[in-house]
């Protein structure tokens, strides 16, 4: 599998996701936001975490309008895979690739902590290595992760099974306490209609080694890599 990690001014978790992708067996190339084309043969585009353009104006707003995003949109329209993590999720919402928006956390503070997620479905390219309903232990680190959408959108997301992950407790129960940023329906991540674009606030890329916290994030990257035939 070939991954392209788009780097915006102010991205800061691109190294973390490159490491996780490589560990899972992907080839990875970093792509500067001003590029108008993706590297040939890109299977997966990753929009990494960080504070693109300082998160000034609205998180992800300025990056969502970068030149490279046209190429990402075209890639997604062709059915190519796109993963946006944290700031990447915000960029996907701002660029119209995913519905809704990430607002300030309910307590108005940046929060960084370990967090369980419930895997809502395991029949996508992103989650096939997890079990449906599994609680995975990852972490969050964001100030604006409070997922908000209008009623209609929410209904559609729920109705079409487009919610990817929800904040949960260690047993996979959806509780108010587990939803610390105040997201609607405890939403931590959502898919596009065709299930080829995933945006999520938590950081699976920071949970890929037992020495550094745990390995529950690996499943996501391994799912992606196993979706593609091994390069010869």
């Amino acid at each position: 599998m070939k991954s392209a990690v788009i780097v915006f001014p102010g991205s800061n978790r691109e190294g973390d996701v490159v490491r996780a992708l490589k560990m899972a067996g992907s080839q990875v190339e970093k792509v500067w936001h001003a590029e108008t084309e993706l590297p040939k043969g890109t299977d997966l585009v990753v929009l990494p975490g960080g504070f693109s353009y300082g998160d000034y104006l609205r998180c992800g707003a300025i990056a969502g309008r970068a030149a490279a995003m046209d190429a990402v949109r075209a890639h997604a329209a062709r059915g190519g895979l796109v993963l946006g993590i944290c700031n990447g999720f915000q960029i996907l919402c701002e660029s119209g690739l995913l519905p809704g928006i990430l607002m300030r956390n309910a307590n108005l503070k940046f929060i960084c902590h370990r967090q369980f997620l419930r895997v809502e479905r395991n029949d996508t390219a992103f989650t096939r290595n997890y079990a449906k309903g599994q609680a995975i232990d990852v972490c969050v680190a964001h100030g604006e992760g409070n997922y908000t959408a209008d009623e209609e959108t929410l209904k559609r997301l729920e109705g079409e099974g487009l919610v990817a992950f929800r904040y949960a407790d260690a047993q996979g129960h959806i509780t108010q306490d587990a939803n610390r940023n105040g997201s609607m329906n405890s939403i931590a991540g959502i898919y596009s209609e065709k299930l080829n674009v995933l945006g999520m606030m938590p950081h699976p890329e920071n949970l890929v080694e037992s020495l550094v916290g745990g390995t529950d994030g690996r499943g996501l990257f391994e799912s992606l890599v196993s979706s593609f035939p091994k390069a010869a």
Partner: protein
Amino acid sequence: MIRNDVAITPELVKEHGLKPDEYERFVNLIGREPTITELGIVSAMWNEHCSYKSSRIHLRGLPTKAPWVIQGPGENAGVIDIGDGLACIFKMESHNHPSFIEPYQGAATGVGGILRDVFTMGARPIAALNFLRFGEPSHPKTRHLVSGVVAGIGGYGNSFGVPTVGGSVGFDKRYNGNILVNAMAVGLARTDEIFYAKATGVGNPIVYLGSKTGRDGIHGATMASAEFDESSEEKRPTVQVGDPFAEKLLLEACLELMKSGAVIAIQDMGAAGLTSSAVEMGAKGNLGIELDLDKVPCREEGMTAYEMMLSESQERMLMVLKPGMERQAEAIFHKWGLDFAVIGKTTDTLRFVIKHQGEVKADLPIKELGDEAPVYDRPWVESPKQPVIDPASVKAPMSEAEALLKLVGSPDQCSKRWVWEQYDHLILGNTVQVPGGDAAIVRIEDGPKGLALTTDVTPRYCEADPFEGGKQAVAEAWRNITAVGGLPLAITDNLNFASPERPESMGQFVGCLKGIGEACRALDFPVVSGNVSLYNETNGQGILPTPAIGGVGLLDDVTVNASIAFKAEGEAIILIGATQGWLGQSIYLRDVCGREDGAPPPVDLAQEKRNGDFVRQLIRSGQVKTVHDCSDGGIALALAEMAMAGNVGAEITAYPDGLPLHAFLFGEDQGRYLIAVDEDVAADILYEAGAVGIPAVTLGITGGDSLILPGRQAISVRQLKAAHEAWLPDYMAGKA
């Protein structure tokens, strides 16, 4: 001939913080009356912050060398060799006053400044720490200050993309009018790619990089004088606003430029901005500097030479480039969307010449600006010695269990989770030990090595006995690094004291420094960088003497480490180190008995080293995975923290005869560690310790869901945790 448009009156001199004799010294040095720009320049160069005029002679007593020290104090940050061709570059710096005025921006720019110090030397920052002291919780300003400072530290570091992995938070009424915000940054570079401030070569271009210059931070008193604010309709705030986004770009652009081979010398613009960075580069290289201020990128219109030379706008750098490389450098900076301008050149005149709008605004001897700064041997008096308190004389006002519950939920001993959850402590994916333990552990690149990082000092000890307190601060940092399995290598210090012009506080400074020096020598733990912050007082009330120590240690194999959490039931708990039940200046005496007196615990540095080396060896051999040092609150608090961290209880059965139980449990004797190990291994360890004369006793065993103190006093771990976790969030929500 240089034009003098503004008459230099004694009032103007005073507003610039220069004493009459200092001004006279300056006039004699240049042989004429200075221009207003020159007065501004010298006031910046000769203030306490830049010149270290009150502290310099005492700092000379600190040990700064070791075989692994590549660069000691005197550069932007200290540099130590950590093997494999890698260097660790680190420093700590205060932003106390700005944070009191505007907590968010003050703290944020403090973080920005220290990160810049580290990447100026070619290092990529890999970790940040922060040492914070606030006034008493009931003071009307405290909550607002805590909230702003913590948000500001997080706001800057999180956006910049460095994990904030450790620090310290405390409260005391002595900081009511003067909080402490000290930020530490740690970076990595290759040993053969370290950059320094020393300019070389005549006629080389001096370039300005980063953000534009505004009127930020120009000294308030001078701004108020009529000449400078007739153009502004409102009183201009002198607060600097941080732009972490610009700093992140500056980091990437600087590192890219350094790789290109274009950089001869580099200096960040910190305090006194363009003035001190330019003077430093020239003076270190024995060169003159000529600047043309018409070329300086400005954010505001009509800025004068005076303002440009004193502006403290953030996120700016000055470099000397190899001639002919300007184009290439400019392309890199423009790619990152940053300003780039050639604003001057090096000369062989040894003069610091400032031109603006076709006029010479300043023409000063460059070396003398630094070398001839006043140096003071200020009068000082030794702090009066306090009596040693006999533990038997201290009555326990409540049971040990009640006292422990009270302490775990007290402002100083409670969990600081509310703080460090606002810091991204996981970014970069190398944080092996998160905040909450003795020292943070950060993996170096992809391993196998790691760094252990901590910040420490016990201000109440320093006040009661500056010498012992200074020793203790270093010893505790050394101990915290040891407790996670690190080999302590070097420290940075941030010396926060009250006015040096009062002999008592100068005495505290002198005493603490002696203690720090002695401990550093005994523990092979040299000082490689630091910062002095004096005049921390309001209305004549000084802060507690607070020399914060930032320690760095090395783990050869980061997977072999220890943490404070009890990990299993049925493990033996062993206390390493001698216990007399030292209650003088203890947390127990202060927070349980309501007394702040007595001599603080002395530190036997030879014992300290032997005990620590023994514990580190146990960790490194893989025998021990659970270690916690005993500091504030003694054995009892350490046990509680171990139980809470691991969700495993313990029963303490053994304690020495002839010592009141509360003195045994809460005494703060130094040089001690608690470890928990498999019972089979315990016997070996006790034997080994006995063989080399290290005090070691078994206190009890882990297990159950309560911590049971002698006399069958049980407290459930859940209850301990509830108290421990509640205080700070409740307080910040206005409930406590």
